[in-house]
């Protein structure tokens, strides 16, 4: 029995008929060969979110980003004219990694006037031009102008820095993020500079962890022990229903209710939550951030609590009613491993009470993510047995259907076979074919 209205078709899933309603196959999350196709079709050709403008406050500020799935490292820098530039992090002399500290595989950041290669001392300015060659006269007809750093397309949306590694890309970032991006762009992320970031190595395919965060059907069950018992049995008996689901191209969003900030009945939450007025949904006393942009709480529900946006392929933004945000990034490192990054952003606390309330919210998320991450390892190993290859999905799991389809569509489109092989991830006909 639905507590919230569904589309006229009777379900969110049928509102998007291309998704089908049949069982789904997760071969795309256990096959090393498929992962290679994703690397080629998606991670080297799609706009990828790699950081925030606040990380580059002044001319010469830079950070590096390892993009394992694209087998490259990127350095982003604020150039002399104030604009952002991104380059492959590689020296033109003999290919040494240009910017790193202590550990070549680890990311770094800082401020500099120019980049100097650790190997033979070649130098590059903040625009990527080669400005100095050690013992230049020893070289044969080398013109410095011919050896700039290899540039990468870079653009900024709502203060988030994106790169696209495809030199031939002709889709602008805004065009790519389309309606869902436009609806969220005016959210005041720039006011929420109190940021903390967590990172974990997860033993699952990157899509399986996104799946876990793009449905809340699991929440009342997996996280039972997080709430005090009366609260958790109440949550479990309600189950979960989204307020609104929206799919635009490869991107999607879920809008959720959330009546826990503050909760109606204070006796139902943990003692520390009462003491610090904070918890799972964030601090109960929200800072004033002005009006929310139109993309947030799209159904204009009075019981709205949170929106989860997935910007294809691997960037999630969560907007919470108490005026804070969270991002997730899922960086694949193989077909069955990925690096998970979670950042929480708050308006800077004005006093110790607010500081501790934010600490509690961050701490709560850490506890959740640990449970989720380990559950995913269990899912990955079971799927890899291929004992069962087809799995049903309920209407509240629509975004899982959508993500796996969007990935498959992107791979097949890139390989130029989209027209020959109709993509029907969720449909019975394709499942039958896969079995045969």
């Amino acid at each position: 029995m639905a507590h919230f209205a569904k589309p006229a078709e009777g379900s969110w899933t049928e509102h998007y008929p291309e998704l089908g309603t049949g069982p789904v196959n997760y071969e795309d999350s256990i096959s090393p060969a498929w992962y290679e196709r994703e690397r080629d079709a998606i991670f080297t050709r799609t706009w990828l979110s790699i950081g925030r403008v606040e990380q580059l406050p002044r001319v010469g500020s830079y950070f590096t980003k390892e993009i394992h799935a694209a087998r490259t490292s990127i350095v982003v820098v604020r150039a002399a004219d104030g604009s952002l530039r991104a380059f492959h992090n590689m020296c033109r002399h003999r290919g040494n990694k240009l910017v790193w500290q202590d550990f070549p595989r680890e990311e770094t950041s800082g401020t500099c006037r120019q980049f100097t290669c650790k190997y033979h001392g070649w130098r590059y300015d903040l625009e990527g031009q080669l400005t100095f060659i050690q013992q230049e006269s020893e070289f044969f007809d080398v013109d410095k102008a011919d050896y700039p750093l290899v540039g990468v397309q870079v653009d900024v949306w709502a203060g988030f820095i994106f790169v696209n590694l495809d030199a031939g890309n002709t889709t602008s970032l805004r065009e790519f993020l389309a309606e869902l991006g436009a609806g969220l762009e005016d959210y005041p992320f720039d006011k929420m500079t109190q940021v903390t970031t967590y990172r974990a190595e997860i033993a699952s395919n990157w899509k399986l962890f996104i799946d876990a965060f793009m449905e809340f059907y699991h929440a009342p069950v997996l996280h039972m022990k997080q709430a005090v018992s009366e609260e958790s049995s109440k949550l479990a008996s309600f189950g979960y229903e989204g307020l609104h689901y929206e799919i635009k191209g490869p991107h999607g969003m879920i809008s959720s209710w959330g009546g826990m900030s503050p909760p109606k009945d204070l006796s139902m939450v943990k003692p520390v939550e009462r003491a610090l007025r904070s918890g799972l949904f964030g601090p109960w006393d929200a800072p004033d951030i002005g009006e929310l942009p139109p993309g947030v709480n799209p159904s204009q529900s009075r019981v709205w609590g949170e929106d989860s946006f997935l910007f294809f392929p691997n960037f999630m933004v969560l907007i919470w009613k108490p005026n804070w945000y969270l991002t997730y990034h899922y960086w694949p490192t193989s077909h069955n491993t990925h690096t998970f990054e979670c950042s929480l952003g708050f308006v800077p606390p004005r006093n110790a009470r607010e500081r501790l309330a934010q600490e509690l919210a961050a701490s709560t998320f850490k506890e959740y993510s640990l449970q989720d991450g380990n559950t995913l390892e269990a899912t990955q190993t079971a799927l890899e047995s291929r004992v069962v290859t087809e799995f049903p999905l309920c209407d509240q799991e629509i975004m899982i259907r959508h993500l796996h389809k969007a990935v498959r569509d992107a791979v097949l489109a890139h390989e130029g076979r989209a027209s020959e092989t109709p993509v029907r991830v969720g449909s019975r006909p394709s499942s039958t074919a896969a079995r045969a």
Partner: protein
Amino acid sequence: MSIRTANTTMLPFEFADLEPFADWALPLEGQRYAKRLTSSMDELQAFYDAAFPRIDDAVAYLDRYPLNALPVDASRLLWLYCSLVTVTFPIEVWHQPNVPDAGASSIDCVVEFPS
């Protein structure tokens, strides 16, 4: 002469009762979490039982200062209460120091809140 001097106490005078737990006054989340994982439930319980009842006193004390200009001993008090947050899950929810069903998974703080 008093035994307690500015050099021998870590926390503000008003929180002398929490001095035995001053080793929880750790500036980084990673340090606080590591200490939680290597503590016994008895140790976590003793810290919780001492610090939790004084949470309102601590917040009221800290709010006398701008957050970005806390004296050193007050900063330690704030870190100690950040640690209290870290141990509330073992005490109030899990009944064990680590997250159930989390196995060997770990999640590490790579960017700390500015403090």
